[in-house]
């Protein structure tokens, strides 16, 4: 048996209301913004990046020794250095640790979790740490509609050869070449390629359907759907596409308060689900990564709460206005080296 044993999350405490971004730009009709169901999104503080979020989530998840760290992110501040290696050192893990970074757009987090599950199931190690972390907010162009929802966050799970809070039953995936959203080497901002790719369902809907369809679980049996949520309307949209009960998305909703946490999104959703799932509940983790790919994991909750404290982190909210968010996220061109004074 392979199960999820413990979990921890990190979400920037600073948040901006979508209404504030709308006031600054007025480039999207108000009712369209409101339809996203996102009240506010996370604003990473100036001292926050993917590595600090991953380290904070992992620290809270870590209740036992682990011998592998899988870190899924598409926003590693370093192009070549392993963020997982830095996080492992921050956690004080023994240097005898397997680390790797995984990059698969917004599904990097579930790719990390599946890798950890595979690592433990194969007997390569006893316990592995899987982390999904992203700071999309730093990669949304000012004035791009993506700026309304691009947030940040991290979630971490310890996976072990025991039942834990949820036992892994089966996994399935899907991938095709579908260019709906991407960031080029050397560029800061993520580009969308138009509503023909995003509104028609050729990316998100088709891939989650493909992956979910191979799980071998009847749609009506799904008790909790923990799903990637670029906005708070997407979980219901996916539930409808898959035919799973609408109420199955309730426990896993996180985007309404923090926006799009990228690779962390589906894992944050799962952490919140496993904080409240009952014994025997059928839990489906479902991710979508632009580009495009999906992972689906069927799990059975054991009734042991995973204790991620996700609500506590979501509730720790400090509102900031748009100019503050611009400053925190460094959405301006400045001197490489500012001049200061000593009064």
């Amino acid at each position, binding site marked *: 048996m392979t199960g999820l044993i413990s979990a921890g999350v990190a979400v920037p405490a600073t948040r901006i209301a979508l209404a504030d971004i709308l006031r600054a730009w007025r480039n999207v009709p108000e009712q369209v913004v409101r339809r996203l169901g996102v009240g506010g999104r996370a604003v990473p*503080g100036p*001292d926050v990046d993917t*590595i*600090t979020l991953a380290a904070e989530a992992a620290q809270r998840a870590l209740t036992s020794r682990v011998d592998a760290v899988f870190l899924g992110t598409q926003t590693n501040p370093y192009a070549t250095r392993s963020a997982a290696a830095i996080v492992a050192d921050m956690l004080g893990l023994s240097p005898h640790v397997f680390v790797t970074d995984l990059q698969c757009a917004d599904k990097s987090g579930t790719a990390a979790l599946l890798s950890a599950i595979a690592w433990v199931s194969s007997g390569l190690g006893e316990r592995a740490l899987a982390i999904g972390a992203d700071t999309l907010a730093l990669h949304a162009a000012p004035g791009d509609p993506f700026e309304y929802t691009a947030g940040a966050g991290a979630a971490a799970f310890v996976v072990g050869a025991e039942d834990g809070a949820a036992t892994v039953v089966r996994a399935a995936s899907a991938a095709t070449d579908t260019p709906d959203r991407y960031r080029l080497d050397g560029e800061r901002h993520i580009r969308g390629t138009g509503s023909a790719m995003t509104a028609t369902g050729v990316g998100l809907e088709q891939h989650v359907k493909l992956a979910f369809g191979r799980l071998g679980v009847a749609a009506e049996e799904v008790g909790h759907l923990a799903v990637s949520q670029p906005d708070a309307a997407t979980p219901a949209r996916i539930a409808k596409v898959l035919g799973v009960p609408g109420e199955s998305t309730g426990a896993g909703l996180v985007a309404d308060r923090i926006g799009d946490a990228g690779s962390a999104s589906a894992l944050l959703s799962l952490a919140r689900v496993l904080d409240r799932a009952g014994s025997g509940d059928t839990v489906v983790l479902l991710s979508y990564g632009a580009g495009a790919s999906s992972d689906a994991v069927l799990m059975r909750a054991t009734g042991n709460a995973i204790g991620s404290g996700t609500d506590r982190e979501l509730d720790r909210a*400090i509102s900031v206005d748009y100019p503050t968010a611009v400053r*925190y996220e460094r959405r301006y061109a400045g001197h490489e*080296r500012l*001049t*200061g004074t000593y009064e």
Partner: protein
Amino acid sequence: MWAPSEPIPRINTASGARGWRNRHGRYRLVGTVCGACEAVHFPARRICPSCRSADLAEKPLSRTGKVVCAAEDHSPLVGHGGRPVRPFAIIELDNGPSVLAELVDVRTVTPGQRVELVIRKWRRESNGLYEYGYKFRELP
């Protein structure tokens, strides 16, 4: 847009080694405990200032503590200007010495406030590397 590509001379550009070798202190508050008199120090020391013993062992200190006294930086140094105001404090660690640290995600700071370690960026080094380290946030 034309950008000059000549390198800018700096007498003091840090090597990667300088910040790297003290990372355990920054990441996990690794200090020292004196084998002779049990005094605990942070940062890690080579000689115990209490008894001058060199029999010191490294040890990660408590990740929680309480504010002793606090102030608020309104003129952040270059590289720390992300926030216009940086609250900071002397924090007495549980079962350990005191540290000087920035407080994040806090509205008000009062002596006695319980705090916990969070890891954040300190600054970007002159060589381009990010230097991460301890900051503290309120414990609920």
